[in-house]
């Protein structure tokens, strides 16, 4: 099961062990863990709520994993994204990638989280001392995802 959306926390070590279990062709495991910060845009974040679009979120994450698998020579990949109420320091997301060598695992892991941030239907709402607010999308996230685009025609 390469993609999961869940309210429960996850155990990074157990998930990565399961990802590479039984496959001795794996020589590299790369992982990204996203966590809740206590300050965003100068406001103290007390709690955060993650919302998703059941059905489409899982489909979008699976499509991103498939894209990574077709683009890099990796063995397997895993995405777990939490939803519901979270607090500072909580884990939000885990991306794990296995491959024979580190280069492919690092690249595919970074690609997956960059695409997840701009393409998977998930939304953060922060609850601060000044009230609740929906987090705005960042242009820097679009730029990060755009780095992975393959040019369709020669640059002028």
């Amino acid at each position, binding site marked *: 099961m390469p993609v999961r959306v869940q309210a429960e926390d996850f155990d990074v070590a157990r998930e990565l062990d399961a990802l590479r279990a039984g496959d001795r062709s794996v020589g590299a495991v790369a992982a990204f863990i996203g966590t809740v910060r206590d300050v965003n845009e100068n406001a103290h974040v007390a709690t955060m709520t*993650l*919302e998703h679009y059941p059905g*489409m979120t899982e489909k979008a994450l699976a499509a991103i994993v498939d894209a990574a698998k077709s683009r890099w020579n990796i063995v397997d990949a895993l995405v777990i994204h939490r939803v519901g109420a979270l607090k500072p320091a909580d884990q939000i997301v885990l991306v794990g990638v296995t491959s024979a060598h580190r280069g492919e695992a690092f690249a595919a892991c970074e690609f997956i*989280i960059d695409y*997840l*941030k701009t393409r998977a*239907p*998930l*939304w*953060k709402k922060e609850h601060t001392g000044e009230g609740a607010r929906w987090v705005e999308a960042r242009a820097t996230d679009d730029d990060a995802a755009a780095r992975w685009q393959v040019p369709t025609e020669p640059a002028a």
Partner: protein
Amino acid sequence: MRDAAADTLTLVYLARLREAFGVGSERILPPAGIDTVAALRAWLAARGGAWAAELAPGRAVRIAVNHDLAEPDTRVRAGDEVALFPPVTGG
């Protein structure tokens, strides 16, 4: 008896749009001529109030048809599930 679901369009609103509209989903009978994502967006904006404000041209709104991100000219048909939401902020 005709299947009501086959005649209607299911609209889903998420995150900020769900709160602004005060509703998470609804079923509508697609009006004549409303057969693309762009036409549907304009038709909903014509409801006025929060609909006009959130769906005004220039506001960043993402629209998915049957769980796939759509373009303005993507076709919309009875039986489809069309979701409207703000740019995503997960990860």
